[in-house]
């Protein structure tokens, strides 16, 4: 009986320690904003890595999502004779929900996993220790630029996703299924209000923080708990990072929606 209680207790304490460590991690990363070294160039590089390189992926995702929304939306709305609302439906779905969520998930899969792997490899090769021994704050040097870049990129990519998606819906709805172009675009213009856009931006900012926090944390501590520093640990960390980020994004989506609605 005692060993069982002991292991349970140890487990709980370990989990608390991990949570604490994760919390401190975010604190250090945010603190890195006001600490040296100078970050402008690093942030620009990261914007290129996270943003520019995700452009086509997001474009594709948005196009097909918009098209499927157009298709499904038309099919559903036509049952009530409300095809004219297609524009509103597609636009609102994208701007409030699908734009931020899908963009975040795609960027997580592309950039989040790459960042986790990059930092994980640095960890197992003693490069992070090397930075510490050179009196360089590894959080400020490695991770803060990524956070800042993501906070800039994700809302912009989300906006891009929204626009392409709305156009995708237009192509299907208007060109293929015969919805009146005027009705579609008017629907978009009149049903989307600032609150919807604001919700989308707020979500993408939250998702940016979640993604960077989880992915870089997992890479940073790859192998540290087991005490084994090899490719296995990096691989495991990357998988965990993407899964955990995705779940967090979806959960965060619900939480932010319920707060802002």
């Amino acid at each position, binding site marked *: 009986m005692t060993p069982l209680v002991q292991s349970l207790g140890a487990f709980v304490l370990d989990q608390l320690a991990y949570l604490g460590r994760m919390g401190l991690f975010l604190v250090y990363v945010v603190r890195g904003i006001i600490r*040296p070294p100078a970050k402008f160039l690093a942030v620009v590089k990261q914007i290129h890595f996270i943003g520019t390189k995700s452009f086509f992926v997001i474009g594709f995702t948005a196009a097909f999502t918009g098209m499927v929304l157009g298709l499904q939306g038309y099919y559903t709305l036509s049952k009530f004779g409300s095809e004219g609302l297609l524009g509103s439906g597609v636009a609102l779905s994208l701007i409030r929900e699908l734009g931020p969520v899908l963009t975040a998930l795609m960027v997580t899969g592309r950039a989040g996993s790459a960042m986790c792997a990059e930092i994980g490899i640095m960890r197992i090769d*003693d*490069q992070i220790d090397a930075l*510490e*021994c*050179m*009196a*360089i704050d590894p959080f400020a*040097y490695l991770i803060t630029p990524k956070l800042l870049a993501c906070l800039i990129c994700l809302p912009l990519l989300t906006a891009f996703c929204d626009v392409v998606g709305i156009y995708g819906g237009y192509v299907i709805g208007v060109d293929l299924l015969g919805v009146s172009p005027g009705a579609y675009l008017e629907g978009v213009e009149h049903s989307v209000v600032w609150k919807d856009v604001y919700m989308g931006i707020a979500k993408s900012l939250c998702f940016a923080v979640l993604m960077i926090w989880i992915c870089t944390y997992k890479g940073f501590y790859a192998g540290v708990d087991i*005490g084994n520093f090899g490719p296995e640990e990096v691989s495991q960390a990357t998988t965990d990072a993407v899964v955990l980020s995705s779940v967090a994004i979806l959960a965060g989506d619900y939480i932010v929606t319920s707060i802002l609605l």
Partner: protein
Amino acid sequence: MSMGHSDLIEVCGLNSYYDSRQVLFDIRFGIPDKRITVIMGVSGCGKTTLLRHLIGLKRTGPGQIMVDGRDLGKFNEEGMRVYRRRIGVLFQSGALFNSMTVAENIAVPLKVHTRLPDETIQIMALIKLNCLGLAEFGAYMPSQLSGGMRKRAGLARALAMDPEILFVDEPSSGLDPITAAGLDLLLLELRETLGMTIIVVTHELESAFRISDRLVVMDRGRILAVGSPDEIRESQDGRVLQFLKREADTVKVNATGYLSRILGNETIRSAR
């Protein structure tokens, strides 16, 4: 065991744990100024843990490490920063940053810690590279270099800020004997010309005896002996003799252990 008054760093009764497992037991020795100290022992004896304590990467565990008379474990952030600017560390793999060239690697601490302009930093990087025979390789990426060259590049980076104290983790691992000997010579030259205090952690017996001014022999988390190479070689201490003999006998395999494994026979264990 000699702990002179000119010791730059003194380890006083250091104990270290990984979770509940003790890996260092009451470590006591001194690191003299402007000399080469070699910490020697087999893999797993705790010397890497000891090194991590000395460079401030591991800070817990009872005992003290005194640097210039002050306890390293009690340094605040600013104190650690100052200490780390005095030291250079060469990690086992070189630990070069993969996303930048060799010259850019060397420039990293210079760019972060000084206001020197880029032109000056470039020349400094080239000077360091040249010291290590890598002058033509500044524009190469770490992945394009051999293991030995990566180590030398890592050493160039460790020397970028002209540190007073240099820590080297397993300098000869992964190197052929000739390159390893070359690295040893370089360490000796650094001590001679620049008066650098150098601490080397290694399992290579020959190299340790060749370059050390003070030798610290470790086994299973404990210090077996501390002294000059001659003192260690002439030591009458049974454990030291056994250690040296055991390590020198690289060809002889533990016959009984091997036989009992391969034959699965208990009685073999008692035979010698």
